[in-house]
């Protein structure tokens, strides 16, 4: 999306949507090309897995095509798109929960018990490391809490827009966000105390290694 001319970009997108609603496959294809990066990034943050994110992204666009006739132009297209993607991501997370953890996943979590190298600043961590920490801690969240947290903190959407995506009230969004932060704080403190200043460390040998 062209950040310099957002109005032009929106107008162009609206045109593409109208053409796609008329059955224009080329217009729909162009729509996918424009929206894929944002949708993929969102789904990667939601699901924590690139392959799953790709699968759900494909499914998202299939659903969009099948339901284009229901799309009301009074809504922003991105709101509608994120609603579909968010619901499918929740379904994927629920499906994942019912599957038992693999040994590889458990081993990965065990390896994440402490940072291998001491970062210079508290926030100076590799993004992949942070993503791994988030994936581990976010297991305590419900699907809705996770979705709200990702949309708020990672996609940086305002509560009003999140409420439109979830088709709920803003107070509900704030409640989900409050609960998500509370649960994540407790989980980070429990699993990764070394990243929380002032927390009594769970593993004393970590401090010995530093000195």
């Amino acid at each position: 999306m062209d950040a310099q001319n957002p109005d032009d970009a929106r107008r162009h997108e609206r045109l593409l949507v109208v053409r796609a609603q008329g059955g224009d496959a080329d217009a729909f294809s162009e729509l996918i090309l424009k929206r894929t990066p944002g949708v993929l990034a969102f789904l990667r943050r939601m699901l924590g897995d690139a392959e799953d994110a790709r699968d759900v992204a494909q499914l998202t666009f299939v659903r969009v095509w099948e339901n284009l006739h229901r799309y009301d132009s009074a809504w922003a297209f991105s709101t509608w798109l994120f609603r579909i993607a968010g619901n499918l991501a929740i379904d994927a997370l629920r499906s994942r929960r019912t599957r038992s953890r693999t040994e590889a996943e458990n081993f990965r979590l065990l390896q994440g018990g402490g940072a291998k190298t001491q970062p210079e600043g508290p926030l100076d961590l590799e993004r992949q490391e942070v993503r791994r920490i988030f994936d581990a801690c976010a297991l305590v969240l419900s699907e809705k809490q996770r979705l709200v947290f990702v949309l708020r903190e990672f996609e940086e959407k305002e509560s009003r827009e999140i409420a439109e995506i979830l088709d709920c009230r803003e107070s509900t969004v704030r409640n989900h966000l409050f609960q998500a932060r509370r649960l994540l704080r407790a989980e980070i403190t429990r699993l990764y105390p070394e990243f929380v200043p002032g927390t009594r460390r769970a593993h004393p040998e970590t401090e010995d290694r530093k000195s």
Partner: protein
Amino acid sequence: MSDRNGFDPQAGCPELGATRRALEARETDTLGPLQERRLKAHLKECSDCAAEGLADDPTLLFFSLAASSDPEPLEGARTRSVENEGRAIATDVMAALEIERARRRVQPARRPAMLRAASVALLASALLALLVATGQIPFLAPSHAARDLQARSGSPAASPAAPPGPVGGSVGRSLELSVDDASLAGSRGQAAVRRPLIEGLENPGARVYQFASDSPKEPNVVFVVDRNADL
């Protein structure tokens, strides 16, 4: 000790107060998008404020995953990579939609066959009902059955109607009765066998057929056939 400007190097970052206020506003969801971006940018650079913030809210650890923190990759590489990925997904999506369209084109062909079968069944039922109503189907025509039984039992035809009461008698015995007011009046004298009351039928030519039960516990069966009946 503070200098003339009030800045105390021992107190840490001069923005600490503003950072705390921003963090409180974030907690109550009253921090605007621009202020939030400034807060994130500052926390990335200032370890004092970051430590303060993390101690209060460890979820600040995930700030680096925000979309606005996405690293700026090499232009050409990013463009190619993003385009390729988008193109691959678009190709897969359009292929999936084409498969779905082809599947839906095949399915409707089954419907005419089902409709034909349903129509044939409906016609057959209607024809059967018509044949039964007009007496074309032998097994349901009472006149034939009654005549057969009558022939076997030897009972007289056109006997007058009997007073009320169950019919006692042998199995299969039937009486063919032609009912009208006169025969009803005349029958009152015959009291030898109790027969069920048959309501007077106004139409001449109405025929009443009675199949007697072989025990008092079983019902008698009475057919009334009136071709001129207007129901």
